[in-house]
């Protein structure tokens, strides 16, 4: 049995996720879309907090909201003239998009709903401390993630190089 507060919080967060997602993809102002994205990401971070993954929520805010959205904003400012980028969708495109997303929603929704163990409540979990996360990140045993950690660093390096090469003027 959840506390009323958490249920209210849950409702707000869920509504935020749904509404801002829809708005992010339907608004005709690109900068607004980025803003709605930011809100959605914040809402996701709240969900992480609600599910007791505080570290993850922090990362979400830091990386996504702090990094990626800023990147978007820069990019939008670089590529668009203010006010002129309102766009009118062709209805055919919209129908196609709707078909695909509703189909997706139906298929995935059905498969989620058909799993009865998803109708269980939140089990108890030990509070996740930073030590555990840190050990898991640096360890080499089972359930530990040194290899992905190293690998993702190579990936990030490559993406930096790639980004620079592509973005460089000549």
């Amino acid at each position, binding site marked *: *049995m959840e506390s009323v507060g958490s249920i209210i919080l*849950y409702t707000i967060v*869920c509504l935020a*996720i*749904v509404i801002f*997602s829809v708005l*992010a*993809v339907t608004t005709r102002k*690109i900068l607004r*879309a*980025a803003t709605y*994205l930011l809100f*959605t*990401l914040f809402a996701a971070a709240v*969900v992480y907090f609600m*599910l*007791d*993954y505080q570290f*993850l929520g922090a*990362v979400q805010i830091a*990386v*996504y909201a702090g990094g*990626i959205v800023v*990147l*978007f904003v820069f990019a939008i400012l*670089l*590529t*668009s003239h203010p006010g002129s980028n309102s*766009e009118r969708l062709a209805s055919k*495109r919209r129908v*196609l*998009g709707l078909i*695909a*997303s509703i189909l*997706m929603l139906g298929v*995935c*929704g059905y498969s*989620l*709903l058909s799993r009865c*163990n*998803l*109708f*269980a409540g939140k*089990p*108890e*979990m030990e509070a*996740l401390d930073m030590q*555990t996360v840190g050990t*898991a*990140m640096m360890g080499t045993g089972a*359930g530990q*993630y040194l290899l992905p*950690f190293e690998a*993702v660093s190579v990936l990030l390096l490559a*993406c*930096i190089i*790639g980004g*620079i090469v*592509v*973005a460089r003027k000549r």
Partner: protein
Amino acid sequence: MEIKAIYYLIPSLIMFCCGLYGFLTRRNMIAMLISLELMLNAVDMNFVIFNRFLFPEQLEGMMFTLFAIAIAAAETAVAIAIIINVYRSVNQVDVRTLNQMKF
């Protein structure tokens, strides 16, 4: 009332589908990227929710999300670099004009 896993999953799925819709319909490439971010974020949420509700004793879902955020950042960076590059070349970011190569 108990908040079940599915109550989290459905918004996440809606987010995913919104992303999908946006990706399929937006003309601005950056808007498409925004939609993509929604999709990726929805996947991340899925992992976290599954981890928390079904397998709380381990951290795999959470760790996956952690790395996925990093990957998403990298993707966005490269994609934005490429889009800016295109913008330099053709002076716009409308994806429908990029159809020189077809058939």
